[in-house]
């Protein structure tokens, strides 16, 4: 049996429904909620209560995970307002952003090929700056402006930044692993 969850993530954690979230308040509300519903609190309770506890703790984790991450939070807030960010279906981007995307992609590839960790780190900083800018715009779009279409478009852009950052991490990791590659493990090979 699934309990009826009538509260949205914000309400569950006792926070105002808003894109701007006080991180410390979110953390402590989450910990307080888990302190109340976590299965460890019901280890010697009846099976029914343990099951309910697992469902609630699952729900608390989901709410926290969603609200902690700014993109997930924005997407969730837009869904509450009836807007679909359309990240899978809507791939149209403004031309200037497309140009920027291509440049970044080329820089990642170049950095990877040249094994240039410094260039990749610099690119990451550039993307971080861009991300901070977009978050400010997002806060305005979802806050005072109530411009939810602009919000959807910003979420799509931010999602792209996430992807490119993951590619940078991957390239950096490949460089690190390559540098730290162990010598052939001649002595540890088994015979069986």
């Amino acid at each position, binding site marked *: 049996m699934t309990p009826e969850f009538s509260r949205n993530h914000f309400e569950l954690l*006792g926070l105002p429904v808003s894109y701007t979230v006080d991180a410390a308040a979110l953390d402590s509300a989450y*910990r307080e909620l888990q302190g109340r519903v976590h299965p460890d609190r019901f*280890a010697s309770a009846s099976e029914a209560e343990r099951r309910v506890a697992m469902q609630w*703790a699952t729900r608390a984790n989901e709410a926290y*995970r969603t609200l902690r991450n700014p993109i997930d939070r924005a997407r969730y807030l837009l869904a509450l307002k009836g807007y679909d960010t359309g990240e899978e279906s809507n791939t149209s981007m403004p031309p200037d952003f497309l140009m920027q995307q291509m440049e970044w992609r080329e820089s990642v590839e170049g950095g990877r090929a040249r094994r240039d960790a410094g260039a990749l780190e610099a690119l990451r900083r550039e993307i971080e700056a861009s991300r901070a800018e977009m978050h400010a715009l997002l806060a305005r779009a979802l806050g005072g402006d109530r411009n939810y279409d602009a919000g959807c478009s910003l979420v799509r852009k931010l999602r792209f930044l996430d992807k490119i950052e993951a590619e940078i991490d991957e390239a950096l990791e490949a460089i690190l692993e390559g540098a730290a590659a*162990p010598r052939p493990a001649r002595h540890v*090979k088994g*015979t069986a």
Partner: protein
Amino acid sequence: MSLLQISEPGESPEPHQRRLAVGIDLGTTHSLVATVRSSAAECLPDARGRVLLPSVVRYGPAGEVDVGYDALALAADDPANTIASVKRFMGRGVADVAKYGALPYHFVDAPGMVAIETAAGLRSPVQVSAEILKALRARAEESLGGEIAGAVVTVPAYFDDSQRQATKDAARIAGLNVLRLLNEPTAAAIAYGLDNASEGTFAIFDLGGGTFDLSILRLTRGVFEVLATSGDSALGGDDFDQAIAMHWRVAHGLVDASGRDTRRLLAAAREAKERLSADEAADAQVTLTWGQQLHLRLTRREFEEITAPLIQKTLGPTRKALRDAGLAVEGIDGVVLVGGATRMPHLQRAVASFFKREPLVNLDPEQVVALGAAVQAHALAGNRAAGEDWLLLDVIPLSLGLETMGGLVEKVIPRNSTIPVARAQEFTTFKDGQTAMAIHVVQGERELVSDCRSLARFELRGIPPMVAGAARIAVTFQVDADGLLSVSARETTTGIGASVVVKPSYGLTDDQVATMLRDGFDHAQADRDARALAEQRVEADGLAAALRAALELDGDLLSVGERAALDAGMASLAAAREGPDHRALKSAVEALNRASEAFAARRMDRSVSRALAGRRLDEVPTK
């Protein structure tokens, strides 16, 4: 704001009546059992004062089973029947164990998990582990003078679902009530954090006999939050022994050594390794099966050289955990070393240089996991005193996903998600009129199904025939607080579609576990029934007490009719409790559990509502 304290709903009605609970570190080379006595955790020693129990089981020709030092003493003479490091085979297939190199056992391929041919017959690693757990349980019950009400058993954080399930089954076969499977580095963090009242972000570097885990935890005001975990479930101190033994074999031309000689070489290698933590060189004498005397020597420099690749292997997972936690080494406030293998000086140097700080070693690295598990067991058994309030939030180590077209993995729950966690993903049909769908659940980080571990395969049948792509199949993954997965699938457009729930299995079916469970007790049927009845009575009493307490507190949440139904259920339970039939009692327990679910849900809702309302009164709105 500090954590609010609430009483345990299932708390024993007589608070003075402590329930005996233990923490068990089921290790690759050694196992330990610990408990909390007069508010301090301590490891329980055997009759000769030794706290470590070698994780070695020997099956003798007359059906006798030796565990621990007795078995270890026989390892060199009877290698095929003396199972050491069985943890490495838990939930593993023949292809997996082949990677460990020369082993003196007769492995038999069984679906899902290997079995070992012994003098006592075919034994699953689950049964071998159960022997170790039984020995620890006996030690604890003797030392504490009573039955153990529950145990927390630790597993490497990087154990996958099959390995966790196998461990839980082993505990069941050993007659232990598992309160929780706890990740080893998390257990160490609990022991360490509570001992030092620490706050901050810690890396737990845990290199045991056979597994390596690296966990990053944040400790804030009584909450232990695992941020990321990583590791290698096939890397440990044993590999260092193997490397030394192989070095000697190559040096002395002993490539085809017998099982017995391999054992002797390994024993000498382990001794040499341990001595090299203090000495510059170690000498060993080994007498081979055909009488040849070998004089073996290893300098610390040689040792460090041949094992450097193994040390390097720990750094990849370490970097990965830091990245997953979104931290640089500068963000780590302390590094804790866990596991006997972390005594090696060159390993300590490597850790210190990676983290740019000296690691903390003020708790015994071999005992710290069992101590932490004991503290958790004490709390879960309901013995937690006021003021000892803390909460543990752990994660799953590996991503869970499904096979999609082309042998690709679609991740459903990413690694390092805080548990319990549930996630649903929608899939659709590929062909017109398709009425069944094969669902393949996998665990791992790679993109190809063939590179991940297969956890379960099942079929969803009875999908109403529709055009391709019209059906909506929602597959839901639920991971519980032990890190164990269950999967359900449902066709959602019609609402009448089929629904399936599976628990992944690693080859042992519930029936097989039940058989092993029965084999574990050398009792007549009557004894078994008596035991089952006693166990069910404990269960029934617990349920009745919990429900009575709940009704007293929140009985107003029920209508008159609902209350009457629960009262009737409790009356049936009380009647069945006095009867002789454990099966009837079990059904009464199950029926009452089902009947009380809606009540349990409403109580939780009230508890959360009250907390939210309380907070709104306390706090001045920030906006």
